[in-house]
């Protein structure tokens, strides 16, 4: 408090000093014009729509099973969105060997990595502005194969998702069925994934349209 009021006094005396000088040089008439400029930044706001069914938590899956979900992305901001980039990461996975393949078949038969487990799931995305892409989840995580990256399918100059609009995607995730067996065994290789699970984190990054020359905007136009 003490500090603040001291500052106030300092400023006051500064202003007084200035006006004394002014008063000494000029007399009377003057005119003051004011120009008011507004630079209000817009908002870039992508939201996962309320009707999306994309957030789920499913267990007790068997090969061949699949889920079909809807992803809705809304542009709730005041600025158009150029592109929406996806990135996928996976965690909370643990290796399991439920059937004890390491002793039933051979050492190492029951072992696998997270990336192997992810390769057992096929991701198919269609919709939006005409996107159609299929990739396994390991490809989605590593951005390889045909994994969807820019899901607006627009390039640098085009509006991918205009303000107030939404994009809707059908997303299918399938636990693929693979009847390959281990050599001289009835056991399917896919048995090594029994009981395993993972959490997938999808990030959707919306980018702004490129900067433009706004000199000719009407007053009040956004």
């Amino acid at each position, binding site marked *: 408090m003490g500090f603040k009021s001291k500052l106030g006094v300092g400023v006051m005396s500064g202003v007084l000093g200035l006006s004394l000088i002014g008063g000494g040089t000029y007399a009377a008439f003057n005119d003051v014009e004011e120009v008011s400029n507004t630079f209000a*930044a*817009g908002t*870039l*706001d*992508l*939201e*996962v729509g309320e009707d*999306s*069914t*994309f*957030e*789920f*938590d*499913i*267990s*007790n*899956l*068997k*090969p*061949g*099973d*699949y*889920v*079909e*979900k809807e*992803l809705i*992305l809304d542009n709730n*901001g005041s*600025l158009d969105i150029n592109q929406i980039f996806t990135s996928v990461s996976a965690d*909370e996975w643990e290796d399991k060997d*439920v*059937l004890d393949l390491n002793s039933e078949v051979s050492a190492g038969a029951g072992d696998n990595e997270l990336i192997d487990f992810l390769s057992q*799931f096929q991701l198919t995305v269609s919709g939006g502005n005409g996107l159609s892409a299929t990739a396994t989840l390991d490809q989605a995580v590593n951005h390889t194969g045909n994994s969807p990256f820019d899901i607006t399918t627009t390039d640098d100059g085009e509006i991918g998702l205009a303000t107030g609009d939404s994009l809707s995607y059908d997303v299918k*995730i*399938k*636990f693929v*069925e693979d009847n390959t067996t281990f050599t*001289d*065994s*009835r056991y399917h290789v896919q*048995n090594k*994934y*029994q*009981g*395993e*699970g*993972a*959490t*997938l*984190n*999808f*990030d*959707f*990054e*919306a*980018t*702004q349209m*490129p*900067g433009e020359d706004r000199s000719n905007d009407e007053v009040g136009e956004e």
Partner: protein
Amino acid sequence: MAMKKKLAMSGIAGAMGLSLIAGGTWAAFNDVEAATNSFQAGTLKMDLSEVDGPYTFNITDLKPGDHMTRKIQFDNTGSLAIKDVLMTIEDVQFEDYVPEKGEPGFNDAWAEEAETDVLDYLDQFTVDLIRVGLEGNDSNYPTNVLLEASLKDLYLASDSLYGQPGNSTDVSAARQAILSAAPDNSRLVDDRLRVSTIANEGWEGIPLDPSDEDQVKITVSFNDDVEDTYEDGTYKQNKFQGDSADITVSFEARQWDGQEYDGDGYIDENERTDTNR
């Protein structure tokens, strides 16, 4: 406190530096939304268990006319319903007994023909397979899976891991014989025997909901052949004296076909038979 403040300050400065760099490269504004989902595979697991005694045969000193019965119970110990269980003979290790001088049988008429092969020997046995697992409102209980089949035919007809156990003419004849020994032809799948429950609403295969175990009773009889004799009146079947066979049988539990699920959470439906979802 002062230390903390300083740290926070440098944190902000760091962040500012970062945003400046980003601003230099890109046109700054972006928004990141996240969505999370998780999925977990179930387990398909079957254990064999004993019913009133062991389920393997380990019998020596057999003589024609002997018969033995075993019961095997299939328990579903996983989290997924089992569609069916396929049984097949994977392998037979045969040991032929040919008496040497001083060994039993050396002076008998059959010693001349003592060299026998695995198929001749297995042909001396007859197999009956009956599904006896008690379960809900099953009017077909117990069900005959295989009646009076030759163990030789069963082996020849098997889709063994190690290839066909005989030439293709013999194999197709044996498959025909097994087909006639099976009252219900849908018991045969890919040249293996479907020993679990079929076509019983809600109980097909080995579901977890309702809880079910299937039991199969296997009876093996050593045929008594008193027709064929040597000139001195001894039975030709004597040539199988001292022979033995080690038979490996596999039971494979299979999953139901994949389906679409639009719900969330644990898939209860996967604990039931396909017709009961």
